[in-house]
């Protein structure tokens, strides 16, 4: 009987799931508040009701009822009803160039996020921070997963990108006592923001050379130490730079890192990294990881490969850092220390090494979990580490490791059973 219910869902293409999700979030937008009151909640639960459930456990059934009425049932029904048209549209799109198909799916995904987040500023914030976490996790995975190093320098790369972008935007566009009057009109700002971010990314890449070059001669534990020292040095450097107000940090960032911007950068990041790791040039990272001597013997330029991995990973960490600074509109060196390192390492190893899927899952899970468990305050930092330890014990390389993301496969229409699917 259960099989009968699930079977139609195996034929749902990605487009179908998106459609279902869109219906659910639209329903919440239109009728969320009255439904919430109807089930006995005061207002729409912001993050799937976790905080309500944790603060007032007696409301657990109410929250579950809400989730069923607003999310699960409408999405399930809409998806089920829309299977055929979804497959039809997916097939039609599939015949068009991949870029178009992908663009349509991404637009739909963005629509879902946009509608869902429209309810509250908190949601927008969480979403943006989660997307940034995806960028960080994936870029670290390039170095730690695909190339198999144990690099602790990611917070340092983030810091370089964050401060570089912040200095540029604040210095050029904001009338702050710090850098003097704004040099350029704010209207120009939005167009130069990407440039500021990219510059931050490039500075982070240059910083990565300090870790990449030693990696030619040493690997494993020694490189871990060197990368750790790098992180401490960057943090210390910033703390001692009066120009950027040292430990007090910078604030007053222009409000340019909105949801569409962060979403676009995340898409760019995932797309370019996925392209890279699926190419033979990208697979060279794996070859260097699994046996460097053999890679050398098989014409792979191992030095170039190592530099590429570090610089590319650092670049996206820098961009993520720049976006982070502009989302929080405040940045200080304390953001980029051991705590940050532990978080980003947790996301990579939890989600899965050497896997784009893994990084997305890891980033989203740990980010949302972190937010959802907020009412537990410090106990959050017992539950999350415990969860990670469990994953390490039972799946040491992470939940979804070594899994390729094949975009074409993802966007394919699912034919009926009896044929290929």
């Amino acid at each position, binding site marked *: 009987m259960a099989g009968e219910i699930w079977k139609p869902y195996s034929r749902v293409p990605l487009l179908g799931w998106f459609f279902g999700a869109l219906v659910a979030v639209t329903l919440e937008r239109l009728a969320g508040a009255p439904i919430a009151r109807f089930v006995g909640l005061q207002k729409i639960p912001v993050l799937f009701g976790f905080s309500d459930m944790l603060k007032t456990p007696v409301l657990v059934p109410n929250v579950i009822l809400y989730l069923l009425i607003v999310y699960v049932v409408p999405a399930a029904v809409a998806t089920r009803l829309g299977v055929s048209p979804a497959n039809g549209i997916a097939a039609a799109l599939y015949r068009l160039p991949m870029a178009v198909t992908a663009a349509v799916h991404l637009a739909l995904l963005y629509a879902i996020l946009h509608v869902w987040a429209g309810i509250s500023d908190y949601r927008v914030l969480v979403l943006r921070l989660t997307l940034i976490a995806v960028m960080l996790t994936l870029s670290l995975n390039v170095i730690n997963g695909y190339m198999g190093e144990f690099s602790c320098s990611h917070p340092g790369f983030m810091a370089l990108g964050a401060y570089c972008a912040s200095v540029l935007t604040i210095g050029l566009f904001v009338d702050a006592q710090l850098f003097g009057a704004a040099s350029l009109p704010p209207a120009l700002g939005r167009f130069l923001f990407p440039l500021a971010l990219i510059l931050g990314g490039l500075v982070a890449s240059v910083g990565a050379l300090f870790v990449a070059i030693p990696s030619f001669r040493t690997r494993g*534990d020694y490189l871990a130490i060197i990368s750790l020292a790098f992180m401490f040095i960057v943090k210390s450097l910033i703390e001692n730079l009066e120009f950027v107000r040292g430990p007090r940090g910078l604030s007053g960032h222009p409000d340019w890192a909105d949801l569409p911007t962060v979403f676009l950068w995340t898409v760019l990041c995932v797309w370019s990294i996925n392209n890279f790791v699926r190419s033979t040039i990208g697979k060279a990272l794996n070859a260097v990881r699994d046996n460097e001597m053999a890679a050398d013997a098989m014409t792979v330029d191992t030095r170039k490969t190592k530099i590429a991995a570090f610089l590319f990973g650092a670049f996206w960490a820098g961009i993520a850092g720049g976006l982070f600074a502009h989302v929080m509109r405040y940045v200080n060196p304390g953001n980029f220390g051991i705590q940050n390192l532990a978080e980003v390492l947790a996301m990579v190893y939890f989600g899965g090494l050497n896997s784009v899927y893994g990084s997305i899952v890891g980033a989203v899970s740990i980010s949302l979990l972190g937010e959802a468990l907020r009412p537990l305050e410090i106990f959050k930092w017992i539950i999350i*580490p415990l969860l990670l330890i469990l994953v390490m*014990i039972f799946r040491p390389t992470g939940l979804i490791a070594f899994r390729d993301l094949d975009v074409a496969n993802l966007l394919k229409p699912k034919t009926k059973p009896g044929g290929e699917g």
Partner: protein
Amino acid sequence: MIVFLQNLVNALQWGSFYALIALGYSMVYSILMLFNFAHGDIFMVGSYIGFGVSMALIALASWGAVALPNWLILVLTILISMFLTSFVGVIVERVGYRPLRNAPRASAAITGLMIGIILETGNLALLGARRVSFPSLIATATYDLGGVFVTNKKIMIVLVSLLLALALHQFVRRTKWGMAMRAMAFDFAVVPLMGVPLNRMIALTFALGSALAAAAGILFGIAYPVLDPYMGILFGWKAFVAAILGGRGSVMGATLAGFLLGFTEIFVAMIFPSTLRDLIAYSIILLILTVRPHGFFGEPYSARLRL
């Protein structure tokens, strides 16, 4: 010159803490090829256990049940805390590392990191955010050696540290357990075939390392009475760097490197503004490691628990 000597004394004290903690890292690494990232937090736990034990002993003494002079309380605190903290280390190994014995080392490293976080958070949860103060068990007496002021505390700290390091050295050299540990460092797989109980030896290694960390914690509490749940982070990572600097697996190297790190920090702070202390110390270390990646006494993979 006087300033130099004064700083030398401080550096010796500072280096003692690093050395004792670095020893624990080195011992575990030499046997399991694994850096126990929770070790710095075990140092913190040892310090707090010391606080608890000393407070309990003081209370005991004040109720008149037993007459305990302060120095005795101190000795008992150190011994009892070392003993108790060694159990913490053993539990950490059993719960976190043993299941991952055959997993990639990175996974074990992450596990260690997480255990450390749990220890910190546990402390915060149990004791709240208020800082605790280590009871003053020694009346500070300052000696004037030709213009250089040395306190009895500093002398005691350095002496106790050197004593413990020496004791460890003798243990590894002379006892059969020590011999087993050295054998494990050379060839891990063969040792159980020789009838050595592997798990027990590994537990012993963790126990010893944790005991030393606890000693460091109590000594630290004597010198700097205000404890902090995050004190392990700062010390832990730096001692970790010292362990690498000394050459992985080298007991003497870890001790030496710990003192060297202490010297570097103190003398850097002497010359440069103190905010630059970490920056310059780490840069120096980075330089040393780039030029000599295996540390002072370390060798790539061959000799491990060397003395």
